[in-house]
């Protein structure tokens, strides 16, 4: 049996980190703890917090628990997942 109650829910949030060039859209916030089951839900949370930003964030690449996704959408988030927004990577 693990711990239960509201504390556990708080602790089970994904940590989202924004790089400098996105701070203009987050009112300067670099980190945010979010409860979301997948990336789509995370985007919805961001959009409700900072209306009008969904498109900006959806266009970014994102690293979820060390794996880089150029087009994340339905990727699941675990409790304590780390989510880093990044510039999209191009190639030659």
């Amino acid at each position, binding site marked *: 049996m693990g711990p239960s109650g509201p504390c556990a829910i708080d602790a089970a949030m994904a940590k989202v980190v924004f790089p*400098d060039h996105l701070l*203009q859209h987050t009112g300067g916030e670099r980190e945010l703890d979010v409860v979301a089951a997948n990336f789509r839900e995370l985007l919805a949370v961001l959009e409700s917090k900072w209306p009008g930003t969904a498109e900006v964030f959806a266009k970014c690449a994102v690293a979820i628990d060390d*794996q880089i996704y150029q*087009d994340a959408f339905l990727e699941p988030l675990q409790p304590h997942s780390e989510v*880093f927004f*990044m510039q999209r990577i*191009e*190639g*030659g």
Partner: protein
Amino acid sequence: MAEAVDYKVVGTRPIRPDGVDKVTGRAQYGADLNLPNMLYGKVLRSPHAHAKIKSVDVSKALAMDGVYAAVSGADFPTAAHGDIGGEGGGDVADVAKNVMARDKVLYHGHAVAAVAATSQSIADAALAAIDVEYDVLTPVLDVDEAMADDAPLLDENCFTANLPEKPDKPSNIAAVMQLARGNVEEGFEAADVIVEGDYNIPMAHQGYIEPHACTATINEAGQATVWCCTQGHFEFRSMTAKLLGMEIADLKFIASEIGGGFGGKTVVYLEPLAVLLSKQSGRPVKMMMTREDVFRATGPTSGTHCKVKVGAKKDGTLTAATAWLAYEAGAFAGAPMGPGAMCVFAPYELENFHIEAFDVLVNKPKVAAYRAPGAPQAAHAIEVALDDLARQLDMDPIDLRLKNAVSEGTQASYGPKFPRIGFKECLEAAKAHPNYTKPLPEGAGRGVAAGFWFNVGMQSSAEVHINENGSVIVVEGNPDIGGSRASMCIMAAETLGVEYDSVRALVGDTESTGFSNVTGGSRTTFATGMAVIEACEDIIAQCKARAAATWGVDEDQVEWEDGQAVPAPGVNADVKPLSLADIAASAHKTGGPLLGRASLNAQGAGASFAVNICDLQVDAETGKVDVLGFTAVQDAGRAIHPDYVEGQMQGGASQGLGWALNEEYIFDKNGVMENAGFLDYRIPVASDLPMIDCEIVEVPNPSHPYGVRGVGETPIVAPLAAAANAVRDATGVRVNDLPLSPPRLLDAIDSAE
């Protein structure tokens, strides 16, 4: 070096399936299609680097005998802003203006009009008959000049992006980017040694040997077919549709064989023009760039000005670093400064760093992707600085890098933690390589540098058809730029358990296979390979079902082993195994032809690291560099066809050495490129190079069934600094700017004396 895995086909070196056509001249490239009744299209290019277009009059050209179409900017729809797609393609409206100038020309060679005529000589005469009136403006030709407060503006509507607040006046700085962690001041205070450098690298070109070319034909219903050399025909289709306001389904793109791209054939130049000229003339139109056009008007890579500062403890531990990276975008926004910023410190563990990068407009051709776009310039700066640091610390340069190398779990400078990577393995392999300790001839020098590139996945589709005799056809959508058909055949043969020779691969056009992103980003063997593997697994599942039906057992009682269906262990069925050929032969009775398919957006591309060792000699009389030896060590994850992995490593080394030693865009004060030909823009020739020794390290990428990481781009990242560091070693003189051409080296050596 490879972890022992029992593969039958993966890792072998069979002859590529498209090889015979390519050694006999049969293979058809971009300029090789001649259609009945075809016209030749040609482009009129701006003689000015920066000017307002007052008027363009094509009427005299159009009136000439043998001229059937003439167009200028006014004939194109106005394109709305938006992402064009593709690799670093940029904004739709910008690409539209790059393809054909509207109110302004922004570089010497910018397209201002185009004609189609019955012969090339008539087309040339028609271009001469076009009247263009210009209002000439002052060109802005280098990145520092362009960033100055009072610089003339290329675009009055360009406001620097990514700033906390929208700036109140326009600027040539299209965008900025910052990455930071820790406390840089404290980090430098903790350092025992600090090195700093200021590095300039001019624009350089991808230098593919095949100039851009296409043939387009459009019918009365508005349905067009375009044959062209491209790294991605699906993306060319959508770009062309956007630029011409056409319905995607009315455009069919057929990718010819492609004579090199390196990122430069990921964006359209001629294709929309050819379609428009064909529409106006009612005839097929072929367009071919000259080499001069290629240099003047297609994507070079950014010229850069970079500044780097690094601090370290006596034992080599890095304590802090800063980077200031300014990238020329050319005429329109979109320099690869983001990847440059993300790559510059990526190979190293750093608690404290600050990185600033700039995307800067200048009156030069718009840059296009070039192999690991943005990374080589940034890597040159840090890897030269680290070499200086190693000298000051009296430390072996590989040991210095090993001391600070990232590994699985390290927080990368660009954000997340690294998954399984092979950087330390590459450093150790380089250190253990006999070439690293081999004695140097008198007066020669040895340089070391490391390189990193992310690699990407993206979308791919594949179908696998099983012929009635069990042979296999793989259909995919990525132009084969360096042996990818062979890799696809290998992965299909391995997965299905059949012979390599029984598999053929073909690159489908936009109407005969599913969407695939460009051949680029080192993604083809990784992502399209994954689609091919999945399509083969689809075939295997179907074969198991057919075998189960044949034997009257359940599907889960059948397994696939060595290319045949066998009863699962413990299943009591007295049956003979059924090979792919057996199942194919009776397919008409068990449900019809076998067709497997897969489409995906591949995630989990594996970062690829490289370490290069360069030996060279500098002629003190002439300043000419002779490369004596070059060793490329790289983590390929898994080499599907080692010959073509080595080929990527050797080709990247050669391009990187050319960039380091000779290649550069030279502009006069009016912004006219002075060396727009292979005679004066000198890429390496056979007598310039030694054999290039390769060591493939294999730290499998856990996200790919066979461990592939992608290998095409990383090879060009390290050679610039490896050569620069070798020159420092040979001459005792540090030259920060590239290229290390004879005049520059002579100057440096003379002033050091």
